[in-house]
């Protein structure tokens, strides 16, 4: 039963192998589409189940905790898993609409599945070194996707991404080693227990700093975000959307896990550092996004600014702020993915997404414009869309702690967001199309818009029916902050006797 928690990892993995050896199968697309939908459905079920019955843990090989590797699906993890499955599903559908089966690169779906497997793995694992392995899985998959369909001279855009993640991996590996040396275990729950007794030992702080840097780098926090805007735009739209929406969030999740579950709450100075780095990230990212001249680049650079919001919530480190964090992540994944998809549609409809050469889309494509509006306004935090609730919760959490400066920074960042969204709206939708540029809408673009529609509907639901999602986020935040819930669910594995292995 508890083995179900491993399904979000194994299902994509097995499917990837199948898809790899059957590149020519006629029903490949529909079968995989159904599989993705099923995966999404299952992860939502898992999320709700965990909400009711508490975290679900599974120990590999039935080894006694903390000696074997465990998977832990608590609220936070399962929420993230559902988000990644959702994004993957929409990305796949979008890809189906965008390309004919015969034009699709046969390695795209297998690699995407492997990417999903790695991402879900890093959400679910309860073991630090295993987390390192999971990171490598999805990183290599993302390298591969990044360079799979590149044109001439684009390979070099992948170099910063790859090289920096190599550095990050080395640092993470050493951090794992140091953690083992320090705690004598790699199991997160056990680590948390042993770390609690080591408060004041500066080795703990150093280790925390190292891990914070690594995860911050994966998340794209200032000043570690250089790789992000440069590397992403070289990808094809579905892949780009999945990366922009999900991959930085893995780093965010790892940070939330690190501070919420593993490290003791006494490391206040780390929280402070994180919060201020986040403040800078928000504003600098916002300004940088505003400076771009292409839709996709604005959106991708804007990922950085939003990462700042999330990390800020982590740095404030209170139940309220974690609640804001979880809600905001969910909102952001949907909205950002949707916007990146729309950028792809614009590129397809007008041949390019350079704002100078775009225009006239509102008149030509009302549905597309509606979708963009819903998402963009939501991103800008206009009530009653989902972004507003996230912003509201973050402001509230910040003011509760009297963090005036950072709150002001956050608000400045949201004004910058509004400006960059307006830049796109005025440039591509309101402005009449320049001479020679026409809007080509065909069944493909319509199908793509329909795929985006899923995300729009969800984000609208999240805004108007915020209650359910807020409740979800609230529970997850409380669960994360009552550290015992996580540890107990892991230690409870030892109560199930297995001959020899568990007394």
């Amino acid at each position, binding site marked *: 039963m508890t083995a179900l928690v491993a399904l979000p990892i194994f299902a994509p993995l097995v499917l990837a192998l199948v898809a790899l050896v059957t590149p020519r199968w006629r029903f490949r697309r529909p079968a995989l589409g159904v599989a993705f939908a099923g995966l999404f459905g299952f992860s939502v079920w898992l999320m709700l189940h965990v909400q009711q019955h508490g975290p679900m843990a599974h120990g590999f090989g039935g080894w006694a905790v903390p000696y074997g590797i465990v998977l832990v699906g608590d609220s936070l993890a399962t929420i993230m898993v559902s988000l990644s499955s959702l994004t993957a599903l929409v990305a796949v559908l979008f890809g189906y609409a965008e390309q004919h089966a015969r034009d699709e690169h046969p390695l795209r779906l297998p690699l995407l599945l492997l990417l999903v497997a790695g991402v879900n793995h890093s959400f679910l694992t309860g073991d630090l070194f295993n987390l390192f392995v999971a990171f490598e899985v999805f990183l290599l998959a993302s390298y591969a996707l990044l360079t799979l369909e590149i044109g001439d001279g684009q390979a070099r855009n992948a170099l910063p991404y790859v*090289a920096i993640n190599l550095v990050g991996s080395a640092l993470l*590996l050493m951090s794992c080693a140091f953690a083992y040396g320090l705690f004598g275990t790699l199991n997160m729950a056990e680590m948390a227990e042993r770390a609690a007794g080591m408060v004041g030992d500066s080795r703990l702080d150093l280790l925390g700093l190292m891990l914070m840097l690594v995860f911050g780098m994966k998340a794209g926090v200032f000043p570690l975000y250089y790789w992000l805007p440069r590397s992403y735009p070289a990808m094809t739209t579905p892949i780009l959307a999945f990366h922009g929406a999900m991959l930085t969030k893995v780093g965010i999740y790892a940070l939330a896990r690190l501070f919420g579950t593993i490290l003791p709450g006494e490391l206040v100075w780390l929280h402070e550092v994180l919060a201020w780095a986040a403040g800078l990230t928000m504003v600098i990212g916002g300004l940088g996004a505003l400076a771009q001249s292409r839709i996709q680049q604005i959106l991708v650079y804007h990922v950085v600014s939003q990462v700042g919001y999330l990390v800020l919530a982590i740095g404030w480190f209170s139940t309220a702020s974690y609640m804001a964090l979880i809600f905001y992540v969910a909102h952001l994944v949907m909205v950002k993915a949707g916007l990146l998809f729309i950028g792809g549609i614009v590129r397809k409809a007008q041949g390019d997404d*350079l704002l100078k050469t775009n225009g006239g889309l509102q008149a030509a494509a009302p549905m597309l414009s509606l979708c963009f509006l819903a998402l963009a306004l939501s991103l800008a935090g206009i009530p009653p869309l989902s972004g507003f609730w996230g912003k509201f919760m973050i402001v509230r959490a910040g003011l509760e702690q009297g963090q005036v400066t950072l709150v002001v920074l956050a608000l400045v960042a949201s004004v910058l967001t509004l400006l960059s969204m307006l830049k796109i709206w005025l440039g591509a939708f309101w402005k009449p199309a320049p001479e020679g540029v026409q809007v080509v809408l065909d069944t493909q673009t319509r199908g793509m818009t329909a795929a985006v529609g899923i995300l729009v509907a969800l984000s609208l639901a999240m805004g108007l029916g915020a209650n359910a999602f807020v409740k979800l986020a609230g529970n997850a935040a409380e669960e994360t902050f009552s550290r015992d819930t996580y540890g107990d669910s892991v230690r409870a594995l030892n109560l199930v006797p297995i001959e020899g292995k568990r007394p």
Partner: protein
Amino acid sequence: MSTQLDLALLVAVVIGVAIYLCLSSRFHRVLLGFLLLSNGANLAVLGMSGDPSGKAAALVADAPGRPPVDPLPQALILTAIVIGFSVAAYFTVLLYRIYTDGQNATLAGLDDPGTGDGKERAS
């Protein structure tokens, strides 16, 4: 379990050299830098298994008199080596591809604008 100065110094040297090479602007030097970096990281992991002097390998039945070394860091290193190998392979091919695209084996080729925005893509 206690630690040894020699290994620490070795880690310092290898990682220092590795970073220095990584920061170079020629492809092959960068590549070698990363190879060294993964080796250095592995050595750092090795350091966690403590001073082997007078210890036995982690093979039960091998020299029962002496205490065996901690097997976990070794296992971690094995995994790390394999992953490092995969990454190194990918990175080599990536550099090769970049080179064949631009006929430029230095990082300088990265700076000139255009294509960075992903304008033209494989159709």
